[in-house]
């Protein structure tokens, strides 16, 4: 049951990515190209997602616990540090180069497009590079 609901939730997300156009790097890159072939569609994707998620989270998080788990797992760090700022800024550079973000690329696996696998292989490589770098440098105290 837990795995079935997770599968269906993944499907809703994947359909949303496909229908919204987030799955298409050309469309994503055009959103960022204010000075050129600008396509404002992605602002509507974010708007639609937040219009549902803000009231939805409010209702859900007012409950004592989720349906299948003893408690909600929410990030408990509140620190705004260089790691967050520089990491996110770095992500934006890669997003601006390739036009895929992780949430766009995972559903895109289903299209079988070879470029998606190329992107994901590099992305996974990047995750491991970051893990190796973090293992070498002093980590933030565990929260």
């Amino acid at each position, binding site marked *: 049951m837990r795995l*079935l*609901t*997770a599968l269906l*939730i*993944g499907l*809703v*997300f*994947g359909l*949303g*990515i496909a229908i*919204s*156009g*987030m*799955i298409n*790097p050309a*469309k994503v890159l055009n959103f*960022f*190209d204010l*000075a050129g*072939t600008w396509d*404002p569609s992605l602002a509507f*994707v974010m708007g639609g997602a937040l219009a*549902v*998620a803000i009231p*939805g*989270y409010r209702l*859900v*998080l007012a409950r004592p616990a*989720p349906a299948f788990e003893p408690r909600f797992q929410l*990030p408990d760090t509140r620190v705004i540090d260089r790691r*967050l*700022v*520089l*990491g*996110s*800024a770095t*992500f*934006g*550079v*890669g*997003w*601006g180069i*390739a*036009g*895929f*973000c992780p949430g766009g690329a*995972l*559903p895109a*696996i*289903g299209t079988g497009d070879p470029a998606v696998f190329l992107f*994901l292989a*590099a*992305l*996974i*490589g*990047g*995750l*491991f*590079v970051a893990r190796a770098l*973090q293992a070498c440098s002093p980590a933030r105290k565990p929260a």
Partner: protein
Amino acid sequence: METAFTPWASLGGGALIGLAAVLLMALHGRILGATGILSGLFRLDDLSDRRLRAALLVGMAAGPLVYLMATGQMPVIDLPISNLAVVVGGLIVGIGVSYGGGCTSGHGVCGNARFSRRSMVATVCFMATAFATVFVLRHVVGA
């Protein structure tokens, strides 16, 4: 390369993305972030957690196939960039989301929907550098 402005499809697709985030929180008590799903698949500590992430991933990848069944065509993926740019972009995205602790789905939708200051800062950072990167690549380097 121009892409069509699709306000309604993008709004509707975005609403599905938001719905998926709310459902995952309501049932499983978790943030729906593509970075977390992907990096969690390569951890060896929590097996039941990995199964949940794998189920989400399979559901996501099924998105384009259900789209195909409903509309008769695969969602469009156009990459107006070289394979080298796909790899470089993917690597940078992987490193960035690892340090930044999330991407467009985790910070941009889920974090912002619960008014997390960390996520708001992250979103401003990655949007700013994505706009700047596309401007530089298309209008400075590529001009």
